[in-house]
């Protein structure tokens, strides 16, 4: 309910200015409910939000590394767990973002932190922690943040909406 109210407020603010509003987390539905949310979730500044991937293979907790300032670089930190709640240390999480109403994405090429690597081919992410560097929102408005996940349960993806 809190999240829904925040999103509603953002929609109203968006009519006026489309700037400077971030919504709260919508908690994922309990196991067994029909389809999990893939959107409508926004990352509040540096606060953790939670997502369930589209096919329910993974849970993602994510946040921005610092309060997002338009035109400034930031990182997205994620914690990846399997459906059983156990951290996924050997996976990959690639984060991207687009502005669907503008028809474009970011003007940067973000890079995934490789994790802890014994060799370049044997990297792990202790405690299931991943990071995407080089994110930048260069315009206010609605950004769709996508998480492409690879892990032991296969590929899956999730989306969140971030209003700047």
């Amino acid at each position, binding site marked *: 309910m809190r999240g829904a109210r925040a999103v*509603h407020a953002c929609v109203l603010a968006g009519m*006026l*200015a489309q*700037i400077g509003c971030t919504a709260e987390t919508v908690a994922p539905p309990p196991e067994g409910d029909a389809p999990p949310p893939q959107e409508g979730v926004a990352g509040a500044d540096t606060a953790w939000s939670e997502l369930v991937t589209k096919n329910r293979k993974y849970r993602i907790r994510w946040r921005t590394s610092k309060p997002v300032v338009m035109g400034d*670089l930031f990182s997205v930190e994620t914690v990846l767990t399997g459906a059983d709640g156990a951290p996924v240390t050997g996976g990959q999480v690639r984060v991207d973002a687009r502005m669907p109403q503008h028809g474009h994405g970011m003007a940067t*090429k973000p890079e995934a932190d490789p994790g802890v690597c014994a060799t370049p081919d044997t990297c792990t992410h202790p405690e299931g922690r991943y990071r995407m560097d080089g994110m930048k929102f260069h*315009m206010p408005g609605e950004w769709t943040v996508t998480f492409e996940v690879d892990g032991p349960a296969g590929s899956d993806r999730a989306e969140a909406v971030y209003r700047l």
Partner: protein
Amino acid sequence: MNPPPLRVAGVLLLLGAAGCRPEGWSAEELRLIRSLSPVPPPPPSPTNGVADLPEAAALGARIFTDPGFSIDGQTSCATCHRPDRAFTDGQRVADLGRGAGTRNVPTVLGAAWGTWFFWDGRADSAWAQATGPLLNPSEHATDAAAVHARVMAEYRAPMEALFGPLSGPAGDRPEQSLAQVGKVLEAFERTLPPPSTRFDRYVAALPAGGLFSPEEERGLRLFIGDAQCVSCHNGPLLSDRSFHTLGLPLPPTGQPDPGRARGATDVLRDPFNCRGEWADGAPGPQGCPELRYLDPSFPDWPAAFKTPSLRGVGQTAPYMHDGSMASLTEVLLFYNRLPGRAEIGHRELTLQPLRFQEADLAALEAFLRTMDAEP
């Protein structure tokens, strides 16, 4: 203006649900307005070790007005960046008799707050930018060796006091002198903040009013609301520091200006960029995140140009990257109609004709003039 019914409904909903007072500002509007003022201190210039030294700024001020750094001995930075004209020249494009430029002379006021420099962002620091006009055949038309010779003849002692012994006194590494001249010029530019304005006093006094006329207040409301100027002209500099395509008419040459599409490529190979050997602090590739993550092939870069600051905008005519619009009135009429189309690239999708009535355009212009520099 005559807003479409949906917009009217939206505003009414907003007023009702968000608790706006029609005669005042909502909490969200206040938050938005306050994001535009005051101007914070400038960010550091990590690749310029003398950026904030008063001695460097003083030396930069001398060099800024020294025509000795030009091929004809008559052109200084101040020739085009005239202090009496808000550091612009009032011309559509500069013409120093060596072939006219293709872009309008931007002000240097507030340069220290920038991320990318030039209209196309082909420099990633103010000091790297300052080397560009020195070498440009249409501007100073000099070269690194001549810059070095001028430094040795006129500025050797103060430059060595700042930078240590010149490693190439015989002129074998003249680029070093060019970079150092750029760095003292940046130090000087860092003493030139964006103009303080009546708008700043208005924001500081909020929620009390009184400093704006009803027309100016209405202009501000349109600026952050229906006109959506704030989509790009945001933050304390009234610029998002990014690049956008407006779809202006082709230049007289008929050749589209590639804008950011070329600037993003150029900055990556600029020898004076953050990764270059002349950058202080040896940041290396990992220490230059803007360059590291820059996407030169971003599809919206063609014909995109940097969003200019609106601080002091009333003093920087003519407007647009090509100087093609003589007045703020003309600029607002352009946004009102959005004629033509982008010859290359594509116009921002959210950029739609305002279709305002004259009174609303006048209100917007009145608001923009609250950004005039105050003494």
